[in-house]
């Protein structure tokens, strides 16, 4: 069984410019691109491995039509029902980090509790061969649910994937985006939690008969385990940021200068090497400025 976790969200909530109040309308919800990609990957993998797909969702009934669409694609569906909060969106008046009103039973903003509810729902349908998620939810998500889910299920995890393909039954080759344009290719065997980015694939469309058959059909709706409902005060994404700093690329080794101390000092500082001092050439007309730039580039050997 390949489990795919989704959270249909209003992708264009209304944000009050003055107060920052967010009003989302789940009747207008859609699957975030990442979750649509997760579902498509899930369907492809299940086809090739000869398994089936379980779509697990944690949320209110407002977006059940989207889950039925997933059902029409051949997936089983389980939803952990939470109290609907039709107008109070996942973000409160102060944004994701501020205090926000949480309806009783609403797990939005509680990634650990959401993951626990999802893990329970998935286990209720069997042991997953693979769990796929979007890299982050469409609402106030910080991308913590997949990690918590991996912990709950005791599985390995690989997050932020841009491509997933099968290599025979039970084996996957996935690619992950790293900083600085790097990619990491991983071979995955055995059960794991994968989260994917919304790129590269589009969710297929369900056939007409399947949609008609699925419309209005019931599916498994569970209530979250009462004891797991979190206390009123949500942790901001359940994560603590201890430090944040800009990306620093790895240093490029440059051979050390040779010669005596004087020469080495000159080489390090570039004090006596040729360089073009800055000149003030303006103000110029646009045509003169263009000529000046072209001439500079030609001098530096960029144009011939």
């Amino acid at each position, binding site marked *: 069984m390949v489990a795919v976790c989704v959270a249909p969200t209003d*992708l*264009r909530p209304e944000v009050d410019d003055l107060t920052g109040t967010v009003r989302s*309308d789940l009747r*207008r919800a*859609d699957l975030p691109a990442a979750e649509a990609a997760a579902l498509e990957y899930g369907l492809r993998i299940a086809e090739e491995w000869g398994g089936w797909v379980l779509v697990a969702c944690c949320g209110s009934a407002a977006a059940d039509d989207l889950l039925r669409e997933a059902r029409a694609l051949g997936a089983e569906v389980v939803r952990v029902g939470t109290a609907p909060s039709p107008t109070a969106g996942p973000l409160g008046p102060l944004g994701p980090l501020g205090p926000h009103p949480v309806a009783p039973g609403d797990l939005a903003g509680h990634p650990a509790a959401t993951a626990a509810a999802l893990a329970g729902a998935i286990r209720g349908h069997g042991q997953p061969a693979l769990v796929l998620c979007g890299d982050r939810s469409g609402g106030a998500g910080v991308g913590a649910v997949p990690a918590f889910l991996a912990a709950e299920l005791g599985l390995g995890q690989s997050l932020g994937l841009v491509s997933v393909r099968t290599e025979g039954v039970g084996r996957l080759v996935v690619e992950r985006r790293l900083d600085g344009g790097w990619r990491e290719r991983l071979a995955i065997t055995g059960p794991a939690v994968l989260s994917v980015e919304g790129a590269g694939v*589009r969710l297929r*469309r369900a056939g007409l008969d399947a949609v008609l058959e699925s419309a209005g059909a019931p599916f498994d709706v569970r209530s979250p385990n009462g004891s797991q409902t979190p206390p009123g005060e949500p942790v901001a994404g359940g994560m603590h940021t201890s430090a944040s700093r800009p990306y620093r690329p790895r240093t490029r080794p440059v051979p050390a200068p040779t010669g005596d101390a004087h020469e080495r000092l000159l080489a390090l500082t570039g004090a006596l090497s040729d360089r073009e001092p800055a000149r003030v050439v303006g103000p110029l007309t646009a045509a003169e400025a263009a000529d000046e730039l072209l001439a500079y580039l030609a001098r530096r050997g960029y144009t011939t």
Partner: protein
Amino acid sequence: MGRWADISFEARMATVEFRVSERAHIVVDSDVCRSCTTKVCVHACPADLFAPTADGGILFNYEQCFECGTCYMVCNSEGAISWTYPDGGHGVVFRHG
């Protein structure tokens, strides 16, 4: 000219939700456009999807289409603009229509 607090066209279009389809639902035959002297679609389209090119053709976009039909209705060259609805579930989504 007495216009106040108007927003840029990009900001205007950013107020609208578009669920963009992979398939272009508008196709323009630029060869037909080259013989068109008025190119009415360029200014009549409320979403500003059509741009004249230097060689007399028309460059078209489909991503931010209101699906109103103005372009093919005002087009005077039969067959220059092929226009269908975008694939189901895609295209514009009005919330305050």
